[in-house]
């Protein structure tokens, strides 16, 4: 495989070199202090070895100056490490506004992924170079973790909630995907690959991959069959139930005076536990769908509601005023770029 033993994995995302830089700084400081302490220890151990059996050296009580020195200097160094790491972490965990979304459902012992344009994948994820990708993830059973060493990022995948992960791939290739939270018998088998492709290749892949309907279209079907339309309107215009069009990203006032910013987790909760947050001006008559919808179906319903006009399409959290759809990469072919279902 490799002719030399590498110290870092492939670098394939915009994070990779940044994390590596911090890692090398930490390694350098560690190496420095380890060598320093070891050298001093060895030096002292030899220079001050016992020469006669009953000798007693002169006692030295201590030194406030030295104590201050070797408290303050390590503290300052530690703070540089903290600040650098925190700043980078903030970038890693705040997904950008215009990221393309991929839904991920982890279960024992496989990864199910669905692109916003409908393509489904099992244990594999195809993405184009240079596009910001945001994964919206949940688990059907136990806690898993979506880990791509080449991207230097991971996040736990927790049942009962959505977690997110984002990256922008920079180098085409095939990279490991690991589950990094022990999840039972086949934990080490819950692995796959992330394929980063040049944009043209990716478009070909998309076209060649006959997809089932997009998650939003499947969600629209469910919206009808589960009866949501009877209170919320066929296009989410509202009625007995609150308006869903343009919901995502909007500050929603609740009964009792609080407001909540509607996001994927809010939508999911409202379907499973409608009584938790009642929109102001409405009564708690919505039944719960707990036990009647799978995580996959919830993801589809969420995608549909996000796609309703007046909303922000792919990017919750942005203002409801017109937000440009994600612009395709400059060098890509004009057709087939994965836009939202509108």
């Amino acid at each position, binding site marked *: 495989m490799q002719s030399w*033993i*590498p110290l*870092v994995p492939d670098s394939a995302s915009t994070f990779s070199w940044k*994390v590596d830089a*911090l890692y090398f700084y*930490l390694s350098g*400081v*560690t190496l420095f*202090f*380890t060598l320093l302490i*070891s050298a001093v220890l060895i030096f*002292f*151990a030899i220079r*001050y*070895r*016992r020469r006669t059996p*009953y000798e*007693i*050296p*002169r*006692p*030295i*009580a*201590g*030194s406030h100056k*030295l*104590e201050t020195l*070797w*408290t303050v200097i*390590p*503290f300052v160094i*530690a703070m540089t*490490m*903290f600040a650098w*790491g*925190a*700043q980078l*972490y*903030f970038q890693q965990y705040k997904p950008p506004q215009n990221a393309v979304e991929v839904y991920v459902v982890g279960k024992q012992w496989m990864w199910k992924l669905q692109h916003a344009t409908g393509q489904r994948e099992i244990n594999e994820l195809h993405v184009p170079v240079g596009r910001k990708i945001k994964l919206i993830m949940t688990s059907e059973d*136990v*806690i898993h*973790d979506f*880990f791509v060493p*080449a991207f230097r990022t991971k*996040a736990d995948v*927790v*049942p*009962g909630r959505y977690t997110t992960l984002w990256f922008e791939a920079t180098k085409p290739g095939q990279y*490991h995907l690991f589950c*990094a*939270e*022990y*999840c*039972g*018998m*086949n*934990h*080490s*088998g819950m*692995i796959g690959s992330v394929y980063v492709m040049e944009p043209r290749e990716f478009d070909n892949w998309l076209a060649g991959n006959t997809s089932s309907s997009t998650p939003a279209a499947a969600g629209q079907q469910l919206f009808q069959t589960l009866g949501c339309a009877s209170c919320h309107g066929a296009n989410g215009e509202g009625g007995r139930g609150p308006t869903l069009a343009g919901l995502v990203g909007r500050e929603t006032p609740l009964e009792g005076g609080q407001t909540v910013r509607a996001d994927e987790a809010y939508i999911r909760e409202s379907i499973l536990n409608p009584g938790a947050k009642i929109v102001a001006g409405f009564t708690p008559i919505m039944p719960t769908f707990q036990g009647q919808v799978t995580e996959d179906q919830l993801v589809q319903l969420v995608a549909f509601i996000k796609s309703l006009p007046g909303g922000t399409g792919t990017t919750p959290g942005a203002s409801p005023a017109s937000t440009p759809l994600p612009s395709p990469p400059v060098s890509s072919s004009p057709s087939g770029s994965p836009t939202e279902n509108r």
Partner: protein
Amino acid sequence: MQPIESFEVPAPPKVNYINAQYGLKSWLLTKDHKRIALLYLGSITFFFFIGGIYAMMIRLELLTPQGDLVQSATYNKVFTQHGIIMIFFFLIPSIPATLGNFLIPMMIGAKDLAFPRINLLSWYIYLAGGVITIYALLAGGVDTGWTFYTPFSTTFSNSYVVATGLGIFITGFSSILTGLNFIVTIHTMRAPGMTWFRMPLFLWSHYATSLIMILGTPVIAITVLLLAFERLSGVGIFNPALGGDPVLFQHLFWFYSHPAVYIMVLPSMGVVSELVANFSRKNIFGYSFVAFSSLAIAVFGFLVWGHHLFVASQSVYAGMIFSFLSFAVAIPSAIKVFNWTATLYKSSISYDTPMLYALGFIGLFTIGGMTGLFLASLAVDVHLSDTYFVVAHFHYIMVGGALMGYLGGLHYWWPKISGRMYPEGWGRFSALVIFVGFNLTFLPQFIAGYLGMPRRYHAYPPEFQVFNVLSTAGASILGLGMLIPSIYFVWSMRYGKHAEPNPWHLPGLEWRTQSPPPTENFEVTPIVTWEAYEFAPPEETEVVGKFGPELERI
């Protein structure tokens, strides 16, 4: 203050705590803290070997990328049980229950701990928990990881979670009672003249450890209990189907389990203070700083548990606070390392086995501690979390740190405990073998971790094999190295040279009585008029104020 020659004590009488009474009942119903320490010594050594066998199985399996030695279900039980046995049944009791129990009363000039019967009870509780856990292992084992994350442990695992949890729950009380005993003893039973700042640093470390034991252990107790009830009843607070929160378990679990790692390492630091001072014949540089650092570690240690949840969907802002505090908790440890090193300056160092372990500790703990900084650093932890980097980090602290201190202390006080000398040549040789074997085992794992090898993997991609082969080779050497002391310690009990009361010629209180000591430790309660580690009169003490001529002469 006496010259070193007069540290000697007249020839020992025939009766000591070992031969004062014969018969199984006199041991199993003893109230003597020294005998209880030996009872613990036997039990924890037993569990250490069980944990070691599991370690051997792990390393053998990981020699090859395929999962070909055992099935994955078995492997999952093996690493789980390795963790549970080593942490709860070896590391947490090790130094406090053996060396602490034996030495704390002697170091403060008391006849016993404050509550001797509670001390004995704590051993029986430890055994009860151990027996239940062994039953669980034999009945079929547990496969949740020692961390028992929900909902896998509550709903999905088909293994003996409740039985193991019960075993851990019970053993936790042993820890609580030990800590309680130590705190009360140190507060109320110091000999006349033994002020807080005349106590050896071993006592400060154990006091700090005891604080953590009594404050943290009850939280894991209730957490394990809630886990067990949830598993039995089918519902509960960690169950997402009810609106429960699986991450709540992680918070509750780590609220104890992070301070627990300080329970494991603080006593070892206390031993190292003793070894460094006594084998360089010098007072510890910055005694009060080292003493307060122990307390600081105990306090800060309770504030950092969230660093185990950086990628677990914890809020980004909480993550930043925990990261900051995790860096802060490293500082007192750094202070200790610098003070130990400074103690050696212009001292008189002997290369006895205990000192070799102490020097090894300082170097390896530095590596372990600094690799902890990688994990405290948020962005790097995102990449390193749940990889072999973490495994290497904590083994550097637990084995390179805690175990080294334990072995060093065992060698140091062996003459006092058993009345015999261990063979010094073999002692130094095995210390070296252990040091080499240990580094070979765990250094490659840092690299494998950064390359992305996840932990708890039964089979792995082939590019990680070279690191695993090196690691297994090291583990074989480490295992052999640890076998040697087990043999010669037992050998020495029968054939070792009889030890003098003060074979190392040291001023500590424990050395001013026979080896082995009589049951009541001291003929007469001593009255303490000297400082800790006082090898020479205080008027000859020099205070290092600035970078003066002494340092320039180097």
